[in-house]
């Protein structure tokens, strides 16, 4: 009975939401027909937000990758929040898993030689790839989050290949703290230098060059390190559980 009721509710919600979603414009849309209102200066502008990003993004942020421009610069504060969410998740998992940490690790079967060797070999390359993704965040698709995730997956590989592998928690913590402090520090520095939190105060440089787009690469490196160490921390906490 309950099952049927649940199903009916789910289907109804699905229908209701689907009816709303069909209103979302799809494909080629004319962004110019929107215009926005600036509540601070109380002015209406014949321009839409996405269109503005596309037209002016490169100029205003110095980032070649518009997505990065939006994520790190226009809406950098959201990114700070998202990083915090991840930080919270890792902290929360760490705090919950704390009781299990001191217990002994169970004997587990070793992985076979192929896996061990391959992961040893791949480990460095994957890290390198991850670093590449976040360092080039403002130039190519990708950025701190996927880069960090890639780094974490390299550690995951190690965990799978060597059951006794254990990343030092202290180091992970230091890494994520420093990365987080960098992010907030850059923000506060912007506040002091220019009066805006997270202001892009460094010179933009030439577009498409590695050293361009002001603070964006700095932030993305911090985010990458942070996400990498946090996800590794979560994996480690989960792996650390032994009955």
């Amino acid at each position, binding site marked *: 009975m309950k099952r049927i009721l649940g199903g009916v509710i789910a289907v109804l919600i699905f229908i209701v939401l689907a009816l709303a979603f069909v209103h979302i414009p799809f494909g080629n849309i004319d962004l110019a027909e929107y215009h926005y209102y600036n509540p601070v200066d109380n002015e209406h502008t014949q321009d839409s937000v996405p269109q503005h990003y596309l037209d002016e993004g490169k100029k205003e942020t110095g980032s070649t990758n518009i997505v990065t421009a939006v*994520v790190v610069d226009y809406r950098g504060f959201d990114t700070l929040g998202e990083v915090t969410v991840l930080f919270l998740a890792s902290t929360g998992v760490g705090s919950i898993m704390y009781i299990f940490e001191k217990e002994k690790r169970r004997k587990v079967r070793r992985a076979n030689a192929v896996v061990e060797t391959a992961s040893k070999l791949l480990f460095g390359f994957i890290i390198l790839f991850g670093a590449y993704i976040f360092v080039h965040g403002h130039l190519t*698709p*990708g950025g701190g989050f*996927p880069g960090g995730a890639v780094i974490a997956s390299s550690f*995951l590989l190690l965990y799978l290949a060597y059951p006794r592998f254990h990343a030092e928690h202290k180091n992970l913590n230091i890494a994520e703290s420093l990365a987080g402090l960098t992010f907030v520090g850059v923000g506060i520095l912007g506040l002091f230098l220019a009066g805006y939190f997270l202001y892009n105060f460094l010179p933009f440089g030439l577009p498409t060059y590695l050293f361009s787009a002001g603070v964006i690469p700095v932030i993305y490196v911090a985010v990458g390190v942070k996400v990498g160490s946090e996800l590794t921390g*979560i*994996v480690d906490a*989960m*792996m650390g559980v032994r009955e």
Partner: protein
Amino acid sequence: MDLFTLVSLILIIAMLIAAVVAAEIKDLLSAAIAMGIVSLIVSILFYILQAPDVAITEASIGAGLSLAIMIFAIKHTERWEK
């Protein structure tokens, strides 16, 4: 119907099936893998929709890490839902 729509449709249907399987199946390991499949298809769809940034993130986090974490979690509890 062009190729784009066709591929999208097939992917979406596959994704829906995987999602229902993930919710309904009693074997939690299979459910987790079905979740991974959902994430994977989503990331492909993102790619098709010209959002490579999101696609990369979704693939690495959704299909990779969170699946691994879920499998670890299942490993420490029970595999079969009661």
